[in-house]
């Protein structure tokens, strides 16, 4: 869209940034774009196919990107929450990133195959979005589209699981996690998984076996989701990256809902918000404690 392209061109020509991370049209659909020259700014697009969370590219471990210099990043409201999280946890300095926020009315679940935003095609994470008008930005662009349709597939799935017995739930996750091959693509794609040394890679002692066995897979996914509690922005990059199509987003959503319900906390766009487990309330729920 022209507004975004013009802004990118300006930021690059006047040297404000060295690279604009946004979306472009690739051979297989919309994909992340790294615009380093003003004349390339025309490649930038923004539409309902722009599902990726580009905040993940701000991870300081990605040296091939940090080497490029000062960065501008195109974000939707949900992605801006991830940027806020990275600033909150000192991975990114607010002054080192120019945030180009796009007003958004929802994105597709399968951007490769679908073309219209309907209750079946919209991403499950768009339901109930409160960030259509992003609050964290240096520049805010675009017209505000109408509210996205609501895709209840995931809430239905979670509700169905809640109705099962413990043994049925155990078997469900054993089945789903039996496909996990411990490739850790979920971790690499996640903007909030930025640890230099992941808990799964500690070897002295080895808390989590690296092999793709039922017990190790369960330990790995449980710990990853717990480490995301209150930090995950539900961008579903983990689920999109998983080559085995494990419904990781369901676990993340469940824990995010638990954190919200118990502590009235949602990872928001304000970097000065405290981390959920760095604070507490004297009146936190303790109904589960004997």
């Amino acid at each position, binding site marked *: 869209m022209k507004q975004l392209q013009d802004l990118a061109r300006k930021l690059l020509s006047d040297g404000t940034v060295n690279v604009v991370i946004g979306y472009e049209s690739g051979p297989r659909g919309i994909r992340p774009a790294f615009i380093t020259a003003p004349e390339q700014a025309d490649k930038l697009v923004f539409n309902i196919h722009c599902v990726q969370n580009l905040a993940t590219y701000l991870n300081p471990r990605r040296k091939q990107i940090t080497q490029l210099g000062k960065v501008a990043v195109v974000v939707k409201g949900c992605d801006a929450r991830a940027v806020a999280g990275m600033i909150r946890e000192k991975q990114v300095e607010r002054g080192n990133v120019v945030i180009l926020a796009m007003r958004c009315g929802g994105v597709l679940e399968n951007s490769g195959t679908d073309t219209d935003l309907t209750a079946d095609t919209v991403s499950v994470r768009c339901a109930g979005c409160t960030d259509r008008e992003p609050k964290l930005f240096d520049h805010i662009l675009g017209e505000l589209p109408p509210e996205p349709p609501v895709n209840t597939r995931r809430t239905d799935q979670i509700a169905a699981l809640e109705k099962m017995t413990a043994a049925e739930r155990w078997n469900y996750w054993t089945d789903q996690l039996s496909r996990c091959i411990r490739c850790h693509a979920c971790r690499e794609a996640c903007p909030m998984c930025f640890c230099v040394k992941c808990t799964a890679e500690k070897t002295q002692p080895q808390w989590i076996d690296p092999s793709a066995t*039922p*017990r190790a897979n369960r330990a790995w996914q449980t710990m990853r989701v717990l480490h995301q509690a209150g930090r995950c922005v539900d961008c579903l990059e983990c689920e999109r990256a998983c080559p085995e199509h494990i419904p990781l987003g369901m676990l993340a959503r469940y824990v995010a809902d638990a954190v919200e319900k118990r502590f009235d906390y949602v990872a928001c766009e304000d970097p000065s918000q405290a981390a959920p487990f760095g604070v507490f309330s004297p009146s936190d729920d303790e109904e589960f404690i004997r």
Partner: protein
Amino acid sequence: MSSKVVEETVSSWSPKVLAFVCNWCTYTGADLAGTSRLKMDPNVRVIKLPCSSRVNPLFIIKAFERGADGVIVSGCHTGDCHYSTGNFHARRRFAILHDLLHFMGVEADRVTFAWVSASEGNKWQQVVNETTERVKQLGPFGGFGKREGGGPQ
């Protein structure tokens, strides 16, 4: 397995329960239970930590991995923490762990969270005996394969 074999295995089985307790309150309370000669099931193995907030959820997962059928996590009552705020942080963490374990199919009765103070020898006895009884009812943890009676998916 035939039900006869299950019965035989279950009757000769005694649960293994791992307890992660804080040094200042619960461990002292457990000690009091012992010196008071309170009768407790012998199934609980105690691991002493400086504070309940030292408990990493990984410990609980690892306990089940390595053969525990049940887990107890216990510390000081809120407001009494030797390190002032440790158990407040721990409470938040345990809450989410409790919810996630439930969602992933670990029966709630297998993991007991408790606050036991240094003077609550009786409460420790209660926590130990009731946890052991609840875990006995549930049966062995059974490892990480599929559960019997798990029903259609």
